[in-house]
């Protein structure tokens, strides 16, 4: 009976069990083993005509090609289909690096184009001549290398002309911060006139680039690269040494067996048996041999540090001068000295050296054995730690990632090899923030200390300082350190961009983010940076909609970033998308319950929604974390006030005012609270203070309330002054708000004629609101009640109309009617409008009762209409509808 093939435990499908064998065979043919010239395509797109095959290697195929556009013969390198992993990236990297180098011995790159199937195409100059590999294998010595008897003599540097040109090119490349890392005779071409070209920068990298994969060809590859150490100039020195060795030793290599692959190479290195040049080729000058041996040292600390040092020593050897490579054994040194300084002194010198010679040799052997042991041990440790490290990587890269598991594995890797910088970095990246922010910083610092080229460690440390620990100085220092190491890496660009945001250079920050994104389109961080640029309160480029878009992109990839969730929530609130905002904030606070910014914003959102208890909880927690924050106090006061807990509200407002004396908002809130709770004189005082100077000096609403404070306190003079000022200074279309109570005051003071004249004038303006104008006409006796009610057709308008009809009735002296109107006004249930509160005060019910249950219309419109910055909710004041009361 048919049973289904068991599916593997992972979620990925693995259908190979049911595939047709021919399909399987096809899937096992990743590459054409060798490209037959007959199989070459005719063109690579319209521009390039294929002429022939120049060569092929592990990473790519080089074709002879004609550029139809520029009408010249060039070479084009493509990645091999199915070749070594990451061939496309290799080629792009190669192009970038080679383009930076301009030197007579470095083959110039013309362009990085695209083949029809999307593969990258590296277009470069055609290399002339033959490869050095061909020359060496054929047994020739390239022109200029001393052979036979000639090698004994101190040659002139011209004889090693080929090598010196090569070394000069590499030295130049190093001066530009570029390492080649795949130097071998196959990558060197020698022209007919002895001119030299270095090619194939496919494994090259910048000195400081930690991101590039490491490779090489075994006999020429520096041993430290197998151990996973970051390469520096000395890796190229090693390769050059091996090349020079071969040039002088008739093509042979320093190691005993020809290590064709990495496994054997590693074994050969571990066993440490290299044949010195002098042993292999006794005819070579010993100093020259010493130079070569020093270049080929397995232990890089004993090699030449720089190529130019190698060149200098080489020239010294050829000129018969002393070389740094070794101290010549005593007979030779004496011989040289004698040659130079005359026979008379020779015997003295020889005798002096004799005594110390044997000791020196013995000690050198001891050192060598110790070095060997140390290197083997280091190899072993690194190989060990790679196992948990690689597994940890897998867990980290999974979706969703298993951070705890990965962290344990990385800790194991660190225990196995404490010098493994990558493991420290990796562990830092698995740490949850902010819980382990400090531990993460420690890990990152350790990684950077072990490997300064690991600039990502600096980058993430800077981010943590900035976002979590609020230490901008430390963040600055980290980002600056990144730039010092490598200013052009995309992470350095991002770091600099973050720095610009700290310095309020928003355009520059965006520009740098753009560069970084172009360098690496997969960089999620770019979105988070842009999002911040569009969100920050003090940003000149603030744009909530664009901010949301950027954070959408970022959060799609990094869904658990608390800062991003918080910021997106904030922007959504700005755009009025409150439900979505609250979702984001809930999530952010779920991940980090003490993220105080999110508490603040969510508190405001909850107030808007009417969830006062929830909002209070949020602000309580925010204040527990940040007790001295006046904005939070202001907001909490507003919540208390709406809940009717007026004493607590007052306390909060006073505390806020005390903590931030330059901020007038708490005072305003307090003034209105006093008014509503019957502290009329205090309210008046506070209004006067606010209106005298500062932010609220011209606030018409406050002027009107000032009038009421005075009126209810019985101070008609002040009330009249305030309302007259209001009528004078309010914009047209809003004068009646002050004119109507003023009219009542004048009538009540026996100045009816004056009252009517004033009101008539104010009401005459066509721009006044129809419903208020109707009430005014009624007050003046020109309209009956029905007409007065005509203009009102919705709850807010009724609220106002009823109130002012009550005012009119009280001016007539009809207290019962007035009370009726005021109660009707209350019944509209519109606490957003000051008339609602004023009606209560008219009825003599002070202090005011807590807010009526919020109905959708009243509550919704009552919510803050203007954009709220985090930390400010004018919840304490029933805000006027913007189109009505400016």
């Amino acid at each position, binding site marked *: 009976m048919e049973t*289904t093939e068991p599916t593997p435990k992972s979620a990925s499908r693995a259908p190979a069990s049911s595939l047709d*064998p021919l399909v399987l*065979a096809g899937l096992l043919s990743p590459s054409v083993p060798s490209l037959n010239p007959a199989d070459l395509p005719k063109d690579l797109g319209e521009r390039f005509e294929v002429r022939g095959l120049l060569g092929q290697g592990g990473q790519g195929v080089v074709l002879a090609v004609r550029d139809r556009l520029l009408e010249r013969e060039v070479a084009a390198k493509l990645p091999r289909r199915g070749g070594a992993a990451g061939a496309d990236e290799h080629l792009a990297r190669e192009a970038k690096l080679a383009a930076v180098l301009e030197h007579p011995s470095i083959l110039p790159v013309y362009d990085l184009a695209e083949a029809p199937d999307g593969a990258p195409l590296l277009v470069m100059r055609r290399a002339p001549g033959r490869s050095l590999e061909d020359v060496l294998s054929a047994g020739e010595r390239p022109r200029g290398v001393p052979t036979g008897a000639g090698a004994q003599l101190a040659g002139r540097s011209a004889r090693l002309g080929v090598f010196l040109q090569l070394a000069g090119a590499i030295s130049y490349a190093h001066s530009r911060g570029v390492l080649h890392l795949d130097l071998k005779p196959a990558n060197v071409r020698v022209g007919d006139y002895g001119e030299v070209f270095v090619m194939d920068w496919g494994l090259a990298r910048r000195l400081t680039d930690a991101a590039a994969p490491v490779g090489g060809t075994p006999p020429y590859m520096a041993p430290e690269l197998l151990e996973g150490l970051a390469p520096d100039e000395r890796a190229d020195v090693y390769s050059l040494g091996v090349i020079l060795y071969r040039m002088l030793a008739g093509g042979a290599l320093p190691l005993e067996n020809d290590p064709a692959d990495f*496994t054997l190479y590693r074994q050969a290195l571990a066993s440490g048996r290299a044949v010195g040049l002098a042993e292999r080729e006794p005819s070579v000058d010993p100093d020259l041999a010493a130079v070569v041996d020093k270049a080929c040292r397995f232990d890089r600390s004993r090699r030449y540090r720089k190529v130019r040092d190698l060149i200098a020593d080489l020239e010294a050897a050829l000129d018969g001068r002393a070389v740094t490579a070794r101290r010549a054994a005593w007979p030779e040194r004496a011989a040289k000295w004698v040659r130079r300084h005359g026979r008379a002194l020779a015997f003295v010198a020889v005798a002096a050296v004799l005594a110390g010679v044997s000791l020196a040799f013995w000690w050198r052997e001891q050192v060598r054995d110790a070095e060997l042991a140390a290197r083997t041990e280091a190899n072993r440790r690194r190989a060990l730690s790679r196992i948990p490290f690689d597994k940890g990587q897998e867990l980290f890269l999974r979706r969703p990632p298993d951070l705890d598991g990965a962290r344990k594995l990385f800790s194991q890797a660190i225990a196995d090899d404490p010098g493994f910088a990558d493991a420290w970095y990796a562990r830092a990246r698995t740490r949850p923030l902010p819980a382990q922010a400090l531990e993460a910083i420690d890990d990152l610092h350790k990684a950077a200390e072990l490997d300064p080229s690991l600039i990502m460690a600096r980058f993430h440390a800077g981010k943590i300082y900035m976002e979590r620990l609020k230490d901008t100085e430390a963040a600055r220092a980290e980002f600056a350190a990144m730039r010092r190491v490598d200013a052009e890496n995309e992470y350095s660009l991002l770091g600099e961009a973050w720095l610009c945001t700290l310095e309020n250079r928003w355009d520059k920050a965006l520009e740098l983010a753009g560069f970084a994104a172009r360098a690496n389109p997969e960089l999620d961080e770019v979105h988070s940076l842009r999002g911040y640029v569009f969100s920050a309160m003090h940003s000149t480029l603030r744009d909530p909609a664009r901010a949301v878009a950027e954070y959408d992109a970022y959060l799609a990839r990094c869904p658990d970033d608390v800062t991003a969730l918080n910021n997106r929530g904030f922007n959504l609130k700005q755009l009025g998308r409150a439900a979505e905002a609250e979702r984001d904030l809930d999530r952010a606070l779920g991940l980090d319950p003490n993220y105080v910014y999110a508490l603040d914003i969510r508190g405001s959102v909850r107030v808007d929604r009417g969830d006062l208890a929830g909002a209070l909880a949020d602000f309580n927690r925010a204040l527990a974390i940040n007790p001295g924050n006046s904005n939070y106090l202001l907001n909490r006061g507003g919540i208390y006030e709406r809940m009717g807990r007026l004493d607590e509200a007052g306390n909060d407002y006073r505390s806020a005012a005390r903590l931030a004396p330059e901020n007038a908002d708490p005072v305003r809130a307090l003034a209105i609270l006093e008014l509503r709770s019957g502290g009329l004189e205090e309210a008046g005082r506070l209004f006067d203070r606010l209106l005298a100077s500062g932010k609220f000096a011209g606030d018409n609403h406050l002027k009107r309330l000032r009038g009421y404070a005075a009126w209810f306190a019985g101070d008609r003079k002040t009330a009249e002054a305030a309302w007259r000022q209001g009528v004078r200074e309010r914009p047209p279309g809003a004068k009646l708000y002050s004119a109507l109570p003023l009219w009542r005051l004048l009538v009540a003071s026996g100045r009816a004629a004056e009252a009517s004249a004033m009101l008539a004038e104010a009401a005459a303006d066509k721009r006044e609101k129809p419903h208020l104008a109707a009430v005014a006409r009624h007050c003046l006796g020109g309209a009956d009640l029905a007409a007065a009610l005509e203009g009102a057709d919705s709850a807010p308008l009724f609220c106002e109309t009823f109130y002012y009809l009550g005012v009119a009735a009280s001016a007539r002296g009809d207290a019962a009617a007035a009370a009726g109107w005021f109660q009707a006004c209350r019944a509209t249930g519109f606490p957003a409008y000051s008339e609602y509160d004023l009606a209560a005060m008219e009825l003599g019910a002070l202090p005011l009762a807590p807010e009526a249950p919020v109905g959708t219309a009243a509550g919704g419109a009552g919510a803050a209409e203007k954009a709220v910055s985090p930390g400010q909710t004018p919840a304490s004041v029933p805000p006027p509808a913007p189109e009505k009361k400016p």
Partner: protein
Amino acid sequence: MPESRWTHARFATTAWTEVLAARGASTEQSARAIEELCRKYWKPAYAYLRRKGRSREEAADLVQDYFAAALEKGFFDGAERERGRFRTYMLATLNRFLYSHRPASRRARTTPIDMVPPDELNESARLARDIQGAASAEELYCREWARALVNAALVRLQEENRGTRRERYVQVFMAHIEPAAGGADGGPGAAASYSEIATRFNLSETDVTNYLHRGRRLYDEALRRELRNSVGSDREAEEELSELRRYLTG
């Protein structure tokens, strides 16, 4: 918060010979390395045993015993001295094991882990057919090994590209190589055509071609990496591939 792509992640592949060559590696770590290889390549061993005449239950038990013994007795410890192709090495040690093994019917395992989860030891009709039709056990072993390798590569391909923008290329590629469910004679159905794939993924056919190119290239890389785990050098990888291919088509 963690990035979704760790920019300098080296998708490292440790040749199994390197793992063992780290002298003094703890048993735990060797065990894990071997475990992983066994998890991927137990089927060829099972098929081999079946073709050699064992019943399903016997073959299943033997496979488990073999891997347990391999760990316990360190069958692979000597590998570093030789050129390393795990496939050939496993077959050699499997044969040696068979020769000297005296099975007991119910025996407590000394290793705590079952190499092959018992519920996976179901033999499909396709496998049963192949066991019957194979010319020799070695040939069957190699063919099953090829399948297992491609399996592992496909799994890796999907894992590595999950959640990236390259995932689309992978999906199109998978759609292209997978046979439709069930052909008329119970064998695999025909693979989807370009226009079917275009419809399914809402792409133009030109896009499908491009995506296939890229998906194929990604698969190649995944295959290389998977292959590299079971051999000792790049040169061996080439040889391994051509041999496996020959077994499938020859």
